């Protein structure tokens, strides 16, 4: 008698319903299966209408983020055996509008991503011509921002963040961490221009350091720490601006 287990999956088909429902599927239980394997099995063998995102199956692309029993996780990294024989409840990541089934709308994230200017910015006249070779960086300088460069944009941190769930104007953990990744990169000179976004009311100051973003991050980026450190540096900036207003650059 082959073992099975139940997956209770969030369904939303806008063309035929105005409210989401849940559908229970019974899938084979395999010791080495992850939740994504079970969902792929459903799609292939049981119900081809189920819609969801996935790609690499190995935790590097960031596509398969879902709420698994209320916790944001990568479905390719969660083993069935850790839940067997209990039922697993699967929903799209919290805080985002749902397009269809497990597919959520990422537009807000993508817009903010671009606004953070996630690339090396050099000041006017500071751009090194190609003939002069690469920008050199020591291992110690790399160590300062490396952790923040590991983000795979899976958005689990947004799903874990109650501030974002309550107010989608909040810039959010991953994007602030990304801003810090460039701010702390010794080759970058764009901190001031990113500060407009980071130090705004919708930026770091909405964060109440719940810390769940860092707890769920599959790449150990620790966005919560990135945000708190940005609070410190932004506060120092603020006092400098207020106490030494003539010291402003440009």
């Amino acid at each position, binding site marked *: 008698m082959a073992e099975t287990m139940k997956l209770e999956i969030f369904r939303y088909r*806008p063309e035929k319903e105005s409210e989401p429902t849940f559908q229970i599927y019974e899938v084979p239980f395999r010791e080495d299966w992850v939740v994504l394997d079970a969902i792929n099995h459903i799609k292939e063998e049981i119900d081809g209408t189920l819609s969801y995102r996935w790609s690499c199956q190995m935790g590097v692309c960031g596509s398969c983020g879902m709420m698994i029993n209320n916790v944001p996780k990568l479905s390719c990294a969660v083993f069935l055996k850790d839940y067997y024989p209990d039922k697993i409840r699967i929903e799209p990541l919290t805080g985002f509008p*749902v*397009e269809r089934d497990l597919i959520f709308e990422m537009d807000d994230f993508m817009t903010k991503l671009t606004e953070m200017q996630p690339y090396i910015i050099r000041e006017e006249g500071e751009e090194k011509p190609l003939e002069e070779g690469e920008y050199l960086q020591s291992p110690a300088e790399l160590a300062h921002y490396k952790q923040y460069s590991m983000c795979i944009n899976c958005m689990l941190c947004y799903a874990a963040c109650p501030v974002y769930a309550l107010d989608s104007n909040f810039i959010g953990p991953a994007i602030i961490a990304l801003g810090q990744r460039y701010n702390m990169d010794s080759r970058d000179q764009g901190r001031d221009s990113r500060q407009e976004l980071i130090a705004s009311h919708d930026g770091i100051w909405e964060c109440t350091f*719940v810390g769940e973003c860092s707890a769920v991050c599959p790449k150990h980026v620790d966005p919560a720490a990135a945000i*708190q*450190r940005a609070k410190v540096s932004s506060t120092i900036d603020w006092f400098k601006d207020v106490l030494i207003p003539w010291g402003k650059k440009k």
Partner: protein
Amino acid sequence: MSTYLRPVPNTWWLKRKPYILFMIRELTSVFVAGYCIFLLVLVYKLTQGADAYGNFMAALKSPSSVALHLITLAFVLYHTITWFNLTPKILVLYRGEERVPQGLVAGTFYAGWVVVSVIVAWLVLGV
């Protein structure tokens, strides 16, 4: 085709343990403020003469005062522990490529706490 926005209940924080612990941490601030008010009243009684002050200090022996103090202490200790444990996230120090261990940063604050507590006790109690 419309997207569906899931409503967020105000009881969102009851759904998972990390959120409940977060809310408890945030509520410690109420007890912190409570003790500030207590100290304010104590200092006020100092301006009202020896009798008023004496009555206030005598009231500290009452069961309700002790109980309130103990509850406040529990919450304030939770504040202290969560506060110090979060300092290494904010105070990130490097020696070359190596990051200063988080335990060392937090440990320094705990050590400082012991020192401050001893000094305060020594000054206040005059022992």
